[in-house]
């Protein structure tokens, strides 16, 4: 692994309270890295420490192989970010804001770059309007444009889908995948929409009470997890009985009108379908949902269990 971001034993304490406690973290070059955690877990503090907005109490942070404390300006020149929410100078136009931050970040061929990012985020045509007239979703797009303006190698996006409409969320997802796949960028993505992380992140960390309780490849972490399967049938009671008789009753989570909810491995699904069909029960639909949400809730509810699952 060639880590582009590395945190070693990083802590941030406010008096006796540790907002971040001995955090170890590695983000590989060229991946989309998901940052998960409940409110107050230390997610935002960690991201701010990576961006040198907050100074760690202990530990070391290095990016691109350089120590953040010693090479702060050089490192920040290679990062684009949205922290918490995209706030801009409201009395200026979107274009003026981009020009201003473009000059600060030493963006080359600024006008061309502004045109490119405006097209990329879908703000072309509104760039001359004052930011105070923008909706939250438009500010979010402007935030993305600003983050991408100077062609950074690492992009840190804190809750970037907040305020976006469903179409905007899909565009954002596609944009992140474009950044990773076509431009070779590394993206750190913090989101409370777990399905987003599941769909686009290669690796992830779950932070709880200031500690990284789970870190690893999303596919590996979730392959250990059961699916939740909604089986829509004509007779849920008969289906429940059939599963109990076949010693598969332990898979049942609950019976709801018109369906059974199961928790099972992916490999169990064909067996369940076959059994119900053999018993003459009509199956109208099988919907497997996952899983990251359950996983996340389970981990954050009892972080001690996470040690067993951790990939470190």
């Amino acid at each position: 692994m060639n880590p582009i971001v590395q945190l070693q034993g990083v802590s941030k304490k406010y008096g006796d309270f540790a907002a971040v406690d001995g955090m170890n973290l590695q983000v590989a070059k060229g991946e989309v890295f998901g940052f998960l955690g409940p409110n107050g877990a230390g997610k935002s503090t960690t991201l701010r420490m990576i961006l040198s907005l907050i100074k760690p109490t202990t530990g070391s942070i290095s990016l691109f192989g350089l120590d953040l404390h010693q090479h702060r300006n050089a490192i920040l020149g290679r990062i684009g970010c949205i922290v918490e929410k995209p706030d801009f100078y409201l009395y200026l136009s979107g274009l003026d804001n981009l020009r201003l931050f473009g000059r600060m970040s030493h963006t080359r061929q600024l006008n061309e770059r502004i045109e490119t990012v405006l097209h990329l985020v879908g703000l072309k045509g509104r760039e001359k309007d004052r930011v105070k007239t923008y909706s939250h979703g438009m500010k979010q797009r402007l935030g993305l444009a600003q983050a991408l303006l100077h062609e950074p190698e690492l992009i840190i996006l804190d809750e970037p889908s907040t305020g976006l409409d469903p179409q905007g969320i899909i565009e954002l997802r596609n944009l992140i995948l474009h950044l990773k796949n076509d431009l070779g960028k590394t993206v750190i993505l913090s989101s409370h929409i777990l399905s987003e992380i599941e769909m686009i992140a290669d690796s992830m960390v779950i932070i709880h009470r200031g500690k990284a309780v789970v870190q690893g490849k999303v596919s590996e972490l979730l392959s250990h997890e059961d699916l939740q399967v909604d089986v829509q049938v004509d007779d849920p009671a008969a289906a429940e009985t059939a599963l109990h008789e076949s010693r598969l009753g332990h898979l049942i989570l609950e019976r709801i009108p018109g369906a059974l909810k199961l928790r099972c491995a992916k490999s169990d699904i064909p067996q369940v379908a076959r059994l119900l069909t053999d018993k003459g029960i009509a199956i109208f639909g099988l919907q497997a949902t996952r899983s990251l949400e359950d996983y996340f809730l389970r981990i954050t509810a009892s972080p001690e269990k996470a040690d067993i699952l951790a990939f470190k």
Partner: protein
Amino acid sequence: MGTLLRIELFKIATKPRSYIGFAAITVIVLLIELALWLDGRSYLEFILQALEQSFQVQGNLLNGNLVSFIILQTLIVQMPLLVALIAGDLVSGEAASGTIRLLLTQPHSRASILWAKYFATSIYVFLLIFWLGLLALGGGFLLFGAGDLVVLKSDELIILKAADTLWRFMAAFGIAFLSLSVVATFSLMLSCYTDNSIGPIIASMAVIILFTIIGTLEVPLFDRIKPFLFTTHMIVWRSMFDQPLDWGAILRSMWILVFHIALFLGVSFFHFTKKDIQN
């Protein structure tokens, strides 16, 4: 640094509140000049009525020099508020609007960002003083013509030849710039400590009013404090119209003002470069 300074100046220039100071100065100066033009004779008679019992006053006393002196004396009291409006908002305004996160994740040291803000504010203060000088002297001479300047103090009457006044006004404006720079750095320092843009402006004015009251009251206890208050030295511009000039006192006051600027800047840099950005 050049880029950062240009950006800070651009932000000040595009912020509507930056023009409040210029508008206020324009309105007040023009009002004073208009009032003196219409009714200046009776105002002057009122001022000179005690003198006329002992002296015979002749010539054009209501001239551009006197009008400029009256304007300077009147407006210099209000100027700190106009300066605090901008300087008090420099850092806290960025924090309140959330732009500080974006600003401090750019590839520039925090110190250079604060230097740029300080220099931009100094330029703003200079332009305010310049505008005041231009309106006061320009308007004064245009409407009232030239003449000797009569400065009436509590215990003496000073008459300065017309040819001897312009450099004194320039020096007075220079000292006023230094005084207002103390206010600017004081507001900047408070601005570094809070995320609320109104707080530093109000706090700056509260401190200036408090210090001014202490400086005005003739109480023995306060007499020991007065030399250490920056407000005591902010009015040293008036000494430029003394005859003879007490250069020792003027330079001492100027050094004390410079010391305060350095002190407030030092505290600002110390805090700002270490501050955790939480909001």
